[in-house]
């Protein structure tokens, strides 16, 4: 019995070897080259297959490889724990000179490892750390969210829009506020109903939240989630939707109108170019629409015909640096003016925003 088991185990192990090798083949293998390529490492919090956040970063990594000819290695589903230190060190052992850490939770570990390796550059997404060889990057996704709000506000017939949101973090709240301000700029009567799912990634649950909103009578679904579950719900009910992270038109062709997008690749190319040239300086990079760091996906045929002109007008102002999403007057949910006309919410205040603007129906947890 034992011998049979041993033989089976050997067969199984050799099979995994075959499968493992087969999987590696499609990724551009590091072929032996006379001169070694410049190496960059990416650590991802989720699987590339999420069709959302990590997928968008992966597009950026591919763009980096294509445009600069560097070798960009990556690791998926890295836990936001000490485990990620090991992954980073392993990448450095493999020769990586730059590390991109693409989730907030990596922050403390990145800062720690960065001090041990002064010759490697570390870039952390969405955090606030800054040092001689480490820096952070993020951007104003609020701008395209505001624009997508315009599209939703023009489309809704019931003046009721649903928003499936992950957690009541300031990043998400800021997005909901920007979206709502966009909606109300063209449709002051419309409300935005918010449902929290308490998960970034659960297609079925995100869809269930969207269905709950649809049962309450909304006719446009927007989302701050990593999967396309909410889009599917809108598609099934024959209403409309606004996506996030990637073009989701394939998953909901009859519902999807547009989506706020990140253009990570543009930042990755720029940064690696600077590092290679030796001109890079640690900075808290905050990319805007003007920089091409964030954008609104092209409107589909489902979007209302008048939306294009309305969006283009505001977008032109954003590109010219003349438009601030959080410029007053802004009222909060109770109707009190919190940002008077003539002033605006400063960037630090935006980064700690914990209140909803007028027009949002939902509660922020204590």
């Amino acid at each position, binding site marked *: 019995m034992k011998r049979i088991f041993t033989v089976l185990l050997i067969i199984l192990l050799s099979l995994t070897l075959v499968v493992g090798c087969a999987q590696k083949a499609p990724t551009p293998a590091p072929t032996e080259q006379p001169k070694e390529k410049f190496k960059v490492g990416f650590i991802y919090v989720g699987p590339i297959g999420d069709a959302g956040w990590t997928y968008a970063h992966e597009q950026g990594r591919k763009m980096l490889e294509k445009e600069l000819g560097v070798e960009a290695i990556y690791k998926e589903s890295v836990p936001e724990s000490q485990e990620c230190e090991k992954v980073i060190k392993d990448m450095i052992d493999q020769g990586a000179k730059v590390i991109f850490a693409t989730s907030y939770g990596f922050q403390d570990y990145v800062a720690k490892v960065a001090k041990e390796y002064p010759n490697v550059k570390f870039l952390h997404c969405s955090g606030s750390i800054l040092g001689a060889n480490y820096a952070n990057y993020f951007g104003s996704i609020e701008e395209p969210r505001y624009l997508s709000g315009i599209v939703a506000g023009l489309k809704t017939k019931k003046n009721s829009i649903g928003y499936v949101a992950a957690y009541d973090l300031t990043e998400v709240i800021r997005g909901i506020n920007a979206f709502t301000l966009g909606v109300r700029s063209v449709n002051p009567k419309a409300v935005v109903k918010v449902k929290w799912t308490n998960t970034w990634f659960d297609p079925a649950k995100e869809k269930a939240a969207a*269905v709950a909103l649809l049962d309450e009578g909304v006719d446009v679904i927007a989302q701050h989630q990593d999967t396309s579950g909410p889009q599917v719900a809108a598609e099934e009910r024959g209403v409309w939707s606004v996506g996030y992270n990637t073009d989701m038109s394939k998953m*909901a062709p009859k519902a999807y109108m547009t989506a706020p997008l990140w253009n990570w690749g543009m930042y990755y190319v720029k940064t690696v170019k600077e590092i290679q040239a030796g001109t890079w300086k640690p900075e808290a990079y905050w990319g805007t629409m003007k920089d091409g760091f964030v954008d609104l996906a092209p409107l589909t045929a489902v979007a209302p015909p008048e939306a294009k002109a309305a969006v283009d007008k505001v977008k032109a102002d954003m590109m010219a640096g003349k438009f601030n999403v959080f410029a007053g007057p802004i009222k909060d949910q109770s109707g009190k003016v919190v940002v008077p006309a003539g002033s605006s919410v400063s960037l630090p205040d935006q980064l700690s925003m914990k209140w909803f603007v007028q027009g949002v129906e939902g509660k922020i947890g204590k």
Partner: protein
Amino acid sequence: MMTVAFLKAAIIAGTPLLFATLGEILTEKAGNLNLGVEGMMLMGAVIGFQMGYSTNSPILAMVFAALAGAIGALIFAFLTVSLRANQVVSGLALTIFGTGFASFAGQSLVGLKMTDAFNASFKTIKIPGLGDIPFLGEIFFNQDIFVYLGYITAIILGIYLYKTSKGLNLRAVGENPAAADAASVRITRYKYIHILLGGALCGLGGAYLSLVYVPVWQENITAGRGWIAVALVIFSAWNPYKALFGAYLFGGLDIIGFRLQGTGIVISQYVFDMMPYLVTIVILVIVSMKKDIRNAPPKALGEPYFREER
């Protein structure tokens, strides 16, 4: 109106749980504790999606989803029945394997969507007569074909377990394999067949998510529902009829948070997410206090059977 919509949604949310729970009941009735439910669900989900996408046939998609779940269960059955390996460890290994397999096999499927014709075959069908019953008709008999299949499977399993001699044999295998063996019940055959059937049902449960509920492939589409099913088996006291009720109850708990957010009642979704496990623990306590034989797990659950030790 709101309640009807909620209850209807609860049935849908409970359907993947129901299939997985029924599968696990069948497995455990044969005396084997298979913790690989999550893995088998994912295998069924990805293979079902792959088949549905490439052949556009709902029948083939469902058949292959069931087969994929059964193949996962076959690994488990071989390890635990033939090799008598530790069931808990084998089951956990199957979960890890199934999750990895689904991610690997699903790499090229990410973001793909089923055709409209495919989705149409799973659209809501109103059952004539029954569907017109006020209130209940809308909730129970105005659903998609998978949901009806869930009702039927639960009832068939109930009849099989409690009204047929084969079902009696199966229960004997799970309770006291030595006695069943003495009564010339083929233990190994019974265990294999029911573990495989159980795996097939788990595969179908996963396929409901990828084929009907969110007909778009995304990694880790089950998001831990396999574990809720394992808890549900205990909750329903290894009884298919109670599983029917339990699955819809847990399905309702999964989505009730969103419904309450609209009404102004503020209870964190986390509270509801932990309910299935909490309720299961409470049930465990009650059952062990009452010492009712009908609610107890199969006696030989988790123990490998050695004929020589009789």
